[in-house]
């Protein structure tokens, strides 16, 4: 809000309060007001700013009730409605879009007022609800919320009334590697084969894991020297299943041209060489 509108707002406030408080007369745009304005005179330039300070028709109604010391539990509907309409009419002249919710309230006020005017039998009067009751409830509720909002507003707020400690610390600990467990691998493998199954272009053969592992093992054993004797390769294997698998692995390696199996003479030592051209040369 700029300074000019603040001034206008303050002036408006003075004028409004003057009616009730008999304070010295205010100035509007530098011109002193010689007479206390009766009822609800507001300079048109100030009205817009003034109305913007209200959060809606309920807020305006509460203001009117307070300003005129009306009893909220026994609202004189005629007076309240008349004053309210006076505001809304002025508002409509300037800011029609602002007035929509205010107009709805006007209708409500007139409705309440007219219902109160309706004659009703004295006997059942006690049981009949006061047409104003709902409005009063809403006004009371809104008034409480307004005060609650003020209370919340006045509570100490982080960053405004106090600060949080934030001592520097290196929260980036040593880089962690992804964790993989065997079941993850198995699941991945199965998902992969499931996917492959759907793909007709591929024929899938499930091979014995252990044979494949043995192939790796044999290649690793061959790596240091590039060759080994047949018996050497199997000398450390005590398990018969492993022995068979290793033998199959060796044959598979030969079939896949990964190793050469050489026997120079009959019943002589069988040597296994890696088929590594670089090394061979």
């Amino acid at each position, binding site marked *: *809000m700029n300074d000019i509108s*603040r001034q206008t*707002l*303050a002036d*408006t*406030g*003075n004028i*409004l*309060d003057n009616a009730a408080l008999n304070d010295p007369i205010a100035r509007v745009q530098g011109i002193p007001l010689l007479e206390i304005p009766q009822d609800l005179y507001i300079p048109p330039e100030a009205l817009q700013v003034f109305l913007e*300070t209200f*959060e*809606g*028709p*309920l*807020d305006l109604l*509460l203001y009117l*009730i*307070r300003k005129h010391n009306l009893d*909220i539990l026994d609202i004189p509907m005629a007076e309240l409605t008349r004053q309210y309409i006076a505001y809304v009419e002025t508002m409509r002249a300037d800011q029609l879009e602002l007035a929509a*919710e205010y107009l709805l*309230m006007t209708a409500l006020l007139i409705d309440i007022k007219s219902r109160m005017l309706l004659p009703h039998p004295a006997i059942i009067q006690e049981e009949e609800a006061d047409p104003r009751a709902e409005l009063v409830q*809403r*006004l*009371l*509720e*809104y*008034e*409480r*919320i*307004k*005060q*609650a*909002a*003020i*209370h*919340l*507003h*006045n*509570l*100490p*707020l*982080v*960053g*405004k*009334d*106090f*600060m*949080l*400690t*934030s*001592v*520097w*610390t290196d929260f980036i600990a040593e880089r962690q590697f992804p964790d993989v467990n065997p079941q993850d691998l198995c699941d991945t493998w199965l998902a992969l084969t499931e996917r492959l199954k759907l793909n007709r272009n591929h024929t899938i053969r499930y091979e014995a894991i252990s044979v494949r592992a043995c192939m790796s093992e044999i290649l690793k054993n061959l790596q240091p020297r590039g060759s080994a004797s047949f018996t050497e390769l199997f000398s450390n294997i005590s398990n018969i299943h492993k022995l068979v698998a290793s033998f199959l692995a060796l044959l598979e390696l030969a079939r896949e041209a990964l190793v050469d199996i050489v026997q120079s003479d009959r019943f002589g030592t069988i040597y296994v060489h890696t088929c590594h051209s670089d090394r061979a040369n």
Partner: protein
Amino acid sequence: MSTPAILTEPIEANLVLSLNDQVVRVVEAALLTTSEPLTINDLKKLFEGNIDKKMLHESLTILDEKWCNSGIELVLVAGGWRFQSKPEMQIFLDRLNPQRPPRYSRAVMETLAIIAYRQPVTRGDIEEIRGVAVSTQVIKTLESRGWIETIGQREIPGKPYLYATTRHFLDDLNLQSLEQLPSLENFNSLNISAEEKLNDQRIDQESGESSIHESI
């Protein structure tokens, strides 16, 4: 494990500290380095759970006493324990950081009050109470501040979202629970005594100067 981890891990080779001293040191360092409040369970995590709650509470008492004379204080909010600067430090600290946190309009504060007191509420409920439409901007402002969140939808046509305040809201306002807010019935509407107060305390929208409103 029967041995608390704090015993098995060297903290300072050349200093033999009592177990409790070490706990206090660790708890203090943790509370000072984190801006988020820490619950007793969080504090237990510091020691991999190998500590009893009694010792943690003792440590907090020691820290509370240790700090009471300084510009920082130990407080308990909804989210747990935290250190924060005392209000009287603010005048100094503000000089370091001239930007002030945003002040919220009356629309925002009234919406927040309705959600805080009447939660869970729909936007329609808020509009009913305030008598005006609630702009999306107002809701967004409160959501982005982390003060309100949707906690479901009401089973009526249109399935409007239900809003409630968050734990972060309580933390930011230095509250331990919603019960710490005065009950709505305590705000006596339009009492003659309250009337004057009300006039003085009107929340201003942008100016941040309540003096304007005092003149209204």
